[in-house]
């Protein structure tokens, strides 16, 4: 039992006092996944077309092996052409900061969007060089992709990323990130409502957990259809954490995708959720790097 590498206890019944700035009850992190142009495609050297997280529907249409799927491609293009700009306008008008999970190749193909992220003051964290399943990728290739992703962000955004989220990570991912260095945090974890330290790979490494349920990917996996249902889910998450935050302040991540929430039938959910948030005091709207910096300063690693 002593060798078991997982932590099933975490903070348990007594989470630490997060001590967010200005005594906030909750830290809210909006994340936009910027992936379009880096998905699976023979144009990118892959064996088949993309099938994951788009509006093709749950199961009926298989990926095209050895060819392009122009329907799927156009759905991803919608995200870059229309959805991104709709989201940028919504967040800019609401004056709410954003962390972008930026896929290196996608940023390289959308330099106007990358410039608009900088102009809006958004954080751009690394989301792999490609938007693919890294479980199928060798360790050497994955290491090279980590460094290519850092370079792509540095060259399109003007600054290297300090945050990381692979998504479909391999068993090597976290170790490669720690070995690469220069990161304040990664978000490849779903195991808590607060940041926590991980010591699996030598030096202490901060994990700022993410969410795949407060996440518009559910529109594509069949879990939700209406904006009303997505809003209701986000609102319930917020209300629960906000109530708990009277005793123990918490953190909430909301994952968004240009091509999903960016569609007209869905973006209203985001507008309604932003309205709901802005009716509450004690909410800290933060980029993930600020949450990480806060945790490093106020909750440094200790044995």
């Amino acid at each position: 039992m002593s060798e078991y590498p997982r932590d099933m206890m975490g903070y348990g019944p007594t989470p630490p006092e997060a001590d967010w700035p200005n005594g906030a009850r909750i830290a809210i992190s909006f994340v936009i996944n910027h992936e379009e142009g880096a998905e699976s495609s023979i144009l990118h050297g892959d064996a088949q077309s993309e099938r994951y997280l788009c509006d093709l529907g749950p199961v009926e249409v298989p990926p095209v092996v050895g060819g392009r799927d122009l329907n799927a491609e156009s759905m991803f293009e919608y995200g870059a052409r229309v959805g991104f700009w709709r989201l940028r306008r919504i967040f800019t008008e609401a004056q709410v900061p954003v962390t972008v999970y930026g896929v290196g190749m996608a940023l390289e193909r959308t330099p106007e969007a990358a410039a608009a992220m900088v102009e809006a003051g958004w954080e751009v964290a690394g989301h792999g060089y490609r938007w693919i399943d890294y479980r199928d990728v060798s360790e050497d290739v994955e290491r090279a992709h980590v460094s290519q992703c850092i370079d792509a962000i540095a060259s399109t955004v003007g600054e290297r990323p300090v945050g990381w989220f692979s998504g479909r990570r391999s068993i090597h991912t976290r170790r490669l990130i720690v070995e690469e260095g220069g990161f304040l945090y990664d978000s490849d974890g779903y195991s808590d409502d607060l940041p926590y330290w991980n010591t699996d790979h030598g030096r202490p490494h901060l994990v700022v957990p993410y969410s795949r349920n407060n996440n518009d990917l559910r529109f594509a996996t069949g879990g939700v259809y209406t904006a009303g249902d997505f809003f209701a889910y986000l609102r319930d998450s917020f209300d629960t954490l906000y109530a708990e935050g009277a005793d123990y302040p918490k953190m909430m991540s909301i994952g968004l995708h240009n091509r999903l929430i960016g569609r007209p039938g869905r973006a209203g959910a985001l507008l309604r959720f932003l309205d709901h948030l802005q009716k509450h005091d004690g909410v800290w709207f933060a980029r993930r790097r600020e949450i990480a910096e806060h945790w490093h300063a106020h909750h440094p690693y200790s044995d």
Partner: protein
Amino acid sequence: MTSEYPRDLFGYGPTPPAADWPGGARIALSLVLNYEEGAENTVLHGDAGSEQFLADIGPAQIEPLVGMRAYNTESMFEYGSRAGFWRIHRLLTSRQIPLTVYGVGMALERNPQGAKAMAEAGWEVASHAYRWINYGDMPEAEEREQIQRAIAAVENTVGERPVGWYCGRVSPNTRRLVVEEGGFLYDSDSYADDLPYWNYEHGRPHLILPYSLDNNDLRFSTNNIFTGEDFFDYIRDAFDLLYAEGAETSKMMSVGLHCRLVGRPGRINGLARFLDHVAAHDDVWITRRRDIAAHWIATHPPAIHPPKVEAGA
């Protein structure tokens, strides 16, 4: 990055053009009825097995029957042409709502009365290919021949050749074959924008009127939604958002319908409520896709020097 990358990931970007719809409308609304029943997969049509896609069989629990007829599935499709079509026809004609039909050639041939009713209602019949199948793997020569049969089928049943095209499950060749065939004002095999746009990939400029698989009753069969009310909620939200944006830059909205899906009694009220909602708004141009295409061609003609699509262009 290669300069040969053939996709456009920028489009209109943050500054879409003023659509300049007739009457200063804030939104152009295109309802589309997919007419497919009688052209789906079945051994009766020479296919290997029965249809599984977009029926009420359920998402994936029941595999297609290989080499045999699936009487349940067939009867669900029959419901669409027998009952659903006429229910939708009554609803739309009673309110004088213009419509574009995506008509599958073989399906129109099997229901000439339905085709005649479309023509009499003043609906546009665009071509939705000759068969309602996945064209992804079809050899180019066969697909070319099917496009010609599709055009002829619309012409023979409706009395006029189609000027719009929507294949659905496209092959890599579909758009090029449609451009080469000629005679079309537009195709709708794209989901990439909220406005029409020009495509220059295949020689002459070709207009795309993007379609929607989310503002679409196919979600009833892919298990995303169950109630007509949820369908109403979704397309109302889409309308409201585009209508609000349309105060500055007018937009286009497509709603996809199927006779055998929204045509069922438990679902049709979702559509009726949406029409009520739309009717409560001014400055809405409810129209056929061919009218949108004609407007775009007249007011937003293609570039004389087509832009070369490059990464970051």
